[in-house]
């Protein structure tokens, strides 16, 4: 029974990790930029959900509908105005640049909301299901389903829309897609916008489960790293698989080694994967 409960917890966590990582993976894969701000975007999304629920009484489910376009716009503008200027520069430059912007974002949130932990408490709270001896809180279940649907929506956009195909084309071969008439700078901005929107929506869903604080940005970013490397870069199915893998590993590890070693476990997994299989579970070798 314990095993099933642990597995369920892992899968719930895993779906949220997949949602966190999908946008990060898209930006990394297409733009070759590691967006350190991703964790900050997630926390910002959580704050929007918390504010709109506690001040205006808007349910988090509806918050998603305006968080997505809002964060898409912010991401688009950041890429268009700042990151596109240095997109061809070495890794160190883009990495340090997004780190600098993350410091600004984090400082802004600290001033606006202070470092106190906030919690979005639904009233009345949703009940807890008891399925065959396994405890499943309904809010977690809903967050999981929504996280998975959002990730699938991103997959469908990339797969079937015109702009999605253009993003994939740029990822496969930047120069060839340029020759085919793709406006690369615009596609970069759209991809970054999608990444930011996914982060904001993930933040809304996480606000249902975890306390909100600017300090958790780093932890979310760490999860995104690990999931990306586990699953394979720039692929949505990879993010889902990596997320589920990490979620289950973490909840099993919490039982076996104790919860205080969860970060050590996930980062050790990261280092092992980086060295033995840097292309990830689903990635293709040399496909950069």
């Amino acid at each position: 029974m314990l095993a099933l409960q642990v597995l369920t917890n892992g899968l719930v966590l895993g779906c949220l990790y997949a949602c966190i990582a999908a946008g990060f993976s898209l930006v990394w894969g297409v733009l070759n930029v590691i967006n350190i701000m991703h964790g900050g975007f997630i926390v910002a999304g959580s704050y929007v959900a918390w504010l709109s629920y506690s001040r205006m009484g808007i349910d988090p489910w509806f918050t998603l509908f305006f968080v997505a376009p809002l964060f898409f716009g912010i991401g688009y503008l950041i890429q268009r105005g700042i990151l596109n200027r240095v997109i061809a520069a070495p890794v160190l430059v883009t990495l340090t640049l997004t780190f600098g912007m993350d410091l600004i974002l984090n400082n802004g949130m600290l001033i606006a909301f202070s470092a106190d932990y906030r919690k979005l408490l639904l009233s009345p709270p949703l009940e807890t299901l008891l399925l065959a001896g396994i405890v499943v809180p309904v809010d977690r279940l809903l967050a999981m389903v929504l996280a998975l649907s959002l990730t699938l929506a991103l997959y469908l956009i990339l797969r079937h829309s015109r702009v999605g195909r253009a993003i994939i084309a740029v990822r496969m071969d930047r120069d060839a897609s340029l020759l085919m008439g793709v406006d690369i700078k615009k596609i970069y901005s759209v991809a970054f916008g999608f990444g930011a929107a996914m982060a904001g929506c993930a933040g809304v869903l996480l606000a249902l489960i975890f306390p909100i604080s600017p300090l958790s940005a780093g932890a979310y970013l760490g999860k995104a790293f690990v999931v990306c490397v586990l699953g394979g870069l720039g692929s949505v199915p990879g993010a889902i698989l990596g997320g589920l893998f990490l979620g289950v590993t973490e909840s099993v590890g919490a039982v076996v080694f104790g919860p205080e070693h969860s970060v050590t476990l996930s980062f050790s997994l990261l280092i092992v994967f980086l060295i033995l299989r840097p292309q990830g579970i689903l990635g293709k070798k040399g496909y950069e």
Partner: protein
Amino acid sequence: MSRKSLWIIVALLGLLSLLPLVGGAYALRIGTFASMYAILAVSWNVIGGMAGYPSFATAAFFGLGAYAGGIMLAGGASLAVATVATGLMTFVAAFIFGVILLRLKGHYFAIGSLAVAEVLRELTNAATELTGGGMGLNIPMSSVVKSVVGEAQFFFYIMWALLIVTLIVVIGIERSKLGFGLRCICQNESAADMIGVNSTLYKSLAFGFSGVFVAMAGVIYAGWVHYIEPPDVYDILYSVKPIVMALLGGLGSTLGAVMGAFLFLAIEEFVWRNLLDLHTGVLGLLIVVLLLFLPKGLVSFGSSWLGKRLVWRNGVPRD
């Protein structure tokens, strides 16, 4: 490195050594930090500037050094023994990490080196019996000097002396076959391999050298502040600040790293004093402005800004 840069470094260090004569405890504190930051920046430059590998492991070395040295100091070892032993240990550890991690390139290496710091921090946090865990580690006052000002002076000169040792070794590396090999690796690693540079050995040695003095600075820092805790010494900002300093001074140059460190400290101190709530935001803004408008560091103020920007994109500049 040109003769002129060498003289500028000597002059800067000489000026710094006069600090205890003119300033009080505050000036000594700033001076000690200036030396420490310069050690971090110059060390990072060995792997990040010369070999071109974007390392985020500085915090790992610093924290490892502070804890290993702190535990030895708390156990009654003298500062000299603790510093040298920690330095040697970190060199070996960094060399071994280097052999494993430096097979990765670009983003993957950056993340891998970042992960090392995270793992070490969590391990330090979890090993409560040895390190005190989240409660931190207390390090007793050194028995050599008893007065507060005397101690401040003592640690200032120790840190300053370590900076000089660091500079001698790093400038030595720059002029040696190792430095030449590292610059080859930076420009084109496959080609360097082809012409007979043992790139794995060279990169790992560079990683070792980029760790050893940072760890020693960590030991001295631990002895100086008497209390360390994991989020303090494994702070990711210790990984990022040296990069900003090196970028500020111009990537790949030792003189640039020293000047960048001093300038960075001046800015940081100014911001801390006047805009306490905004200091990380201002640091972030500094990074953004620096990377967008001064990609070659302070040297960009010189002639033909755009031309140098283009040069810089194709390869790391040299002095």
